[in-house]
């Protein structure tokens, strides 16, 4: 229906006169779906995510986050590969048959996770703001609850922002059929739940460097304590000849402390190009020190469309207590894990995000990324020659999102 210009005038002035009502009640929504799939029939995840933001007249923001993830696929158990077939019982009571020469994986994992978070960001006065929130997630065998609060102060005509925040989380590990006793033999009694507490403190600085560049520098300290084991992961005791004699449950320390330094830079190179770079150093007392470098460049293609290719490089050192397996002639250490995620590896990601606007001025984005984890493999025994405890993997991550 084509409005006459008179009608348009009435309409546009009426909207303006009541503009606060539309503003105050206006929600900005961001919804996305995600698919993550690893090679070799390993983990696959499908997710739906939502972020809603509502800003009131005073500039206070309420954000609501909600998400649903469904997980399936095989996951390495930490059991060493061997030229003999093996049999294990999974935590849920299923028998897992591991063919000779193959990486032992448990493919009975099916899980669904629900997550939710609420965050309230409010200005205290001209220079100070604070932001506080709660987070929650629930899976079949895990419960997370957390609170966080950050205060920030702007200086130098809002060219500098300093912030300090604290995050406290209390999680419950509710392993299927109970948690195992660390170091006990696979199949031994499992019972009970346990908890995990973590504290993270973050100091941040955001600094405008010029009309076209802005940088961020964060330092954070985190401490986690409690039940830090993965209740479904094992390690193998292997004879020098390569025969797996025992599979036992892993054992990790009950405290973990770490420091992270993160820096990022956004720079508008020219009218159509924005470069984002970041570097992250991490050091902790488990020995899993890491370095991450990311670079992306967003090219404006005109007409509200853009393409942003990105790359990421990651490297981590193995945890001090990481061992792909334990030799039968050695004593079993107090702390040991064969979890591939604690191994020494390098990981590479390449990807791109394409954004566009539809006729109703909704902003769409589609992202595709390819991730490759390349562990540094240590030699196993002679009897396992040719086998790898950790073969690494690749994964594809595809996501479609819309802001409206």
């Amino acid at each position, binding site marked *: 229906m084509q409005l006459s210009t008179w009608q348009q005038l009435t309409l546009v002035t009426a909207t303006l006169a009541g503009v606060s009502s539309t503003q105050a009640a206006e929600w900005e929504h961001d*919804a996305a779906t995600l698919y993550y799939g690893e090679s070799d029939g390993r983990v696959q995840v499908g997710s739906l995510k939502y*972020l809603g933001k509502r800003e009131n007249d005073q500039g206070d923001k309420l954000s609501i986050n909600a998400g649903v993830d469904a997980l399936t696929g095989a996951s390495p158990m930490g059991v060493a590969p061997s030229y003999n077939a093996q049999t294990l019982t999974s935590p849920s009571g299923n028998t897992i048959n591991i063919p000779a020469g193959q990486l032992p994986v448990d493919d009975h994992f099916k899980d669904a996770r629900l997550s939710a978070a609420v965050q309230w960001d409010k200005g205290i006065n001209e220079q100070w703001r604070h932001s506080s*929130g709660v987070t929650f997630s629930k899976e079949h065998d895990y419960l997370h609850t957390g609170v966080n609060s950050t205060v920030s102060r702007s200086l130098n005509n809002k060219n500098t922002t300093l912030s300090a925040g604290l995050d406290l989380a209390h999680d419950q590990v509710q392993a299927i059929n109970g948690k195992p006793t660390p170091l006990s033999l696979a199949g031994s009694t499992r019972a009970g739940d346990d908890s995990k507490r973590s504290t993270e403190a*973050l100091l941040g600085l*955001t600094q*405008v460097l010029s009309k076209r560049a802005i940088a961020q520098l964060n330092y954070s300290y985190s401490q986690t304590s409690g039940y830090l084991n*993965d209740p479904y992961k094992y390690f193998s005791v292997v004879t020098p000849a390569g025969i797996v004699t025992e599979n036992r449950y892993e054992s990790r320390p009950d405290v973990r402390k770490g420091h992270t330094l993160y*820096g990022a830079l956004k720079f508008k190179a020219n009218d159509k190009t*924005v470069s984002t770079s970041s570097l992250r150093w991490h050091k902790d007392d488990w020995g899993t020190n890491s370095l991450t470098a990311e670079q992306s460049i967003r090219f404006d293609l005109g007409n509200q469309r853009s393409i942003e290719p990105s790359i990421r490089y990651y490297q981590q050192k193995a945890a001090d207590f990481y061992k792909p397996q334990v030799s039968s002639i050695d004593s079993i250490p107090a702390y040991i894990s064969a979890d591939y995620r*604690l191994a020494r590896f390098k990981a590479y990601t390449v990807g791109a995000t394409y954004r566009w606007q539809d006729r109703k001025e909704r902003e769409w984005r589609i992202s595709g990324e390819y991730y490759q984890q390349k562990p540094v493999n240590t030699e196993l025994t002679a009897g396992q020659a040719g086998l790898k405890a950790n073969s690494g993997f690749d994964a594809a991550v595809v996501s479609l999102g819309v802001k409206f």
Partner: protein
Amino acid sequence: MLIRVGLAFALTLSMSSCAQPQVKPWERGVLAEPAMTFGHDALKDSIADHVYFAKEATSGGRSLTGGGGCGCN
């Protein structure tokens, strides 16, 4: 070594902020663009953070973890 590098970075940043003339509010047009704002794509960032949290031993740094709680690591 980490501390030394970190200190150098912090020093450079603070020196540069003193040396740079302040950007006035009306000059912040470019800085106000979404692509130039840290955290403008919060949902996309949190998805990426979660994927890496599940597959790597270290996480965080960009912001307070809040919401990273997951049995996947």
